[in-house]
């Protein structure tokens, strides 16, 4: 693999090491417009001011604060041509896509634009820097308009100060895009960093799917701090899938916000496979009547991995629904945290809100923490929430064994079966198959 050239540079001059330390780097200065540059500089100031999270903050309960060591990382390093080529070759997830973007260390490697037909309909599929330069009004209306409310304000400011890479997908009123869009964000080089951004703006009655793939090129340590925002106009349908498969030495923070308009439907699924310590915060705001948000996540955690997930389902108006299903499979000494809240604002009557977390422990040393919560200020609502933690049923396992299936494989089958419900809820079989393959690949990579 080409990454070896980065790792094994004898002079210790791996590309990553030539970069300034992240904490001394300041905001990005190459912003596409002066206004955006100013914003980024201001965000850096706020990043410096906002204190580090503390354990006494309820939003960081159970969290491993020692995992937050930002001083170890450096600003994103440029990627040489050879590595870029290798990564491009590996940057294909779906067979056919409506558009593709590939970034490595926040550097744009490839931009496959939309078809002429979609362009004529007004669909925008742009790298963030171009969107900032060419569509300032659109960006002003939608770029990071929802603050990070679940504890990661500091990381959101850092992202805002450092962001260069990202996809901006705008789908005009009534336009339906059949094929999915696909964006790849690679992290490479020792102690590197990346700040991937995703912004989907789906106007009235539009329909679109986007798959983000976040990966490490090698086994290097690094950090990733990403922000995703999904905006759904009336009747819009958005499916957003993110696949995270960083090296086991990466720390990640993800802040996701989804705003659902009237009769719109958002379906988001996050597949978490890699990383040493990954925290993701997901907020769904049901802002228009008839809106619905499906929040789905799968964590396959083993070794000493930690996945920390915080969620908020906010029902701002009546007749809205949200349905969260998170499943975690934990092996070895892995650890997961789930803290979720359903908030039904006053007046948001006829709310349907569900929250279900299921943990499957494959080892006695794995630890799953769950804290589901409800805060209801309206009448006539249907809300359920619950978290369960269990092990593989001995009788199920015996059944598979009695068919001659070896223990390890029988356990995997059961874990796959356990996770299947989440993939099925996505309602996109082609993508679901890829997700199942990735889970399988993780199983096969372990214990070689």
């Amino acid at each position, binding site marked *: 693999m080409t990454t070896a050239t980065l790792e094994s540079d004898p002079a210790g001059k791996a590309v990553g090491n030539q970069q300034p330390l992240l904490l001394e780097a300041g905001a990005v200065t190459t912003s596409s417009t002066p206004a955006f540059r100013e914003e980024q500089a201001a965000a850096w100031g706020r990043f410096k001011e906002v204190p580090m999270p503390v354990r006494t903050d309820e939003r960081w309960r159970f969290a491993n604060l020692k995992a937050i060591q930002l001083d170890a990382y450096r600003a994103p390093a440029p990627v040489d041509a050879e590595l870029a080529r290798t990564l491009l070759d590996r940057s294909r997830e779906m067979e056919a896509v409506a558009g593709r973007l590939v970034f490595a260390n926040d550097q744009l490697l490839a931009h496959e634009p939309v078809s002429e037909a979609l362009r004529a309909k007004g669909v925008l599929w742009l790298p963030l820097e171009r969107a900032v330069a060419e569509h300032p009004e659109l960006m002003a209306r939608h770029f990071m308009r929802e603050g990070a409310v679940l504890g990661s304000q500091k990381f959101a400011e850092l992202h805002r100060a450092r962001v260069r890479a990202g996809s901006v997908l705008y789908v005009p009123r009534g336009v339906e895009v059949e094929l999915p869009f696909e964006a790849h964000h690679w992290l490479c080089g020792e102690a590197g960093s990346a700040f991937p951004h995703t912004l989907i703006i789906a106007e009235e009655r539009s329909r679109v799917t986007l798959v983000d793939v976040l990966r490490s090129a090698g086994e290097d340590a690094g950090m990733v701090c990403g922000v995703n925002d999904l905006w759904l106009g009336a009747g819009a349908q958005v499916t957003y899938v993110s696949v995270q498969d960083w090296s086991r030495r990466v720390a990640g923070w993800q802040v996701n916000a989804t705003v659902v308009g009237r009769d719109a439907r958002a379906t988001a699924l996050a597949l978490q496979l890699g990383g040493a310590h990954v925290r993701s915060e997901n907020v769904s705001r049901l802002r228009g009547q008839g809106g619905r948000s499906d929040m789905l996540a799968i964590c396959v955690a083993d070794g000493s991995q930690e996945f920390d997930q915080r969620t908020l389902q906010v029902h701002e108006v009546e007749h809205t629904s949200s349905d969260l299903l998170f499943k975690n499979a934990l092996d070895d000494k892995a650890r997961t945290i789930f803290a979720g809240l359903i908030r039904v604002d006053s007046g948001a009557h006829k709310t349907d809100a569900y929250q279900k977390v299921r943990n499957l422990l494959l080892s006695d040393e794995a630890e799953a923490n769950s804290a589901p919560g409800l805060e209801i200020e309206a009448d006539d609502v249907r809300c359920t929430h619950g978290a369960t933690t269990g092990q593989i049923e001995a009788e199920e396992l015996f*059944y598979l064994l*009695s*068919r*001659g299936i070896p223990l390890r494989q*029988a356990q995997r089958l059961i874990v796959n079966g356990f996770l299947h419900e989440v993939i099925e809820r996505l309602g996109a079989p082609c993508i679901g198959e890829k997700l199942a393959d990735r889970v399988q690949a993780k199983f096969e990579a372990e214990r070689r």
Partner: protein
Amino acid sequence: MSSLSIRNLHVRIGEKEILRGLNLEVPKGEVHAIMGPNGSGKSTLSKAIAGHPDYTMTCGEVLLDGESVLGLDPDVRARKGLFLAFQYPMEIPGVSNANFLRAAVQARLPEGEELEATEFYARMYEKMDLLEMPRAFTARSVNEGFSGGEKKRNEILQMAMLEPRYAVLDETDSGLDIDALKVVSNGVNTLRGPGMGILLITHYQRLLDYIVPDYVHVMVGGRIVQSGGKGLALELEEKGYDFIKEGLPEEQSVA
């Protein structure tokens, strides 16, 4: 030596001894039936043979064509040619029947050899036709939401696909209506032959009208207390288990 041979088998669950010196020989190519009242240890026998971890063999032997299975894990026993059709087949949510069967068939291939998918499906469909199972079954999760009859058919489908040397069918007739019983029996009858020894465990004689055994054994109190031809089953049906129990010493008659 071509037989499933059980010699002086003692098995306990926890501290409780359930099988107390059971002897049984099922030669390859024959069908033997074990009948017995509730609590006589019939299901314990099937689980113990299959290697369920809750059942401890304290004494005796189980030999598969002369080879002891004692201490072998259940999956190893299965790959050596043992099959257990469960009385209550487990539901495995999210795992499709096809994937489950593929994994089981794949496990029997030599290391590094990949299952040929087209061949596998062709063979599976052929067996499903025999059991009158619609194709849709392949995509459904293993036994999830299956009726009693569907579950039992699924057990026989697995047996057909895995081609064991010895199969133990635990109360395969329970929960079946007469039509389903005919289909399942027809499946078993098609599979029986010189290459397979079958041990039928049943509470009722009814099953034996459809799968006619070569021998019948009566089990009471964790032992085989009487053996005979298929006529023995009819006698049991007529007179009930009490007539057997009456002939036994007091200590054995209590299950």
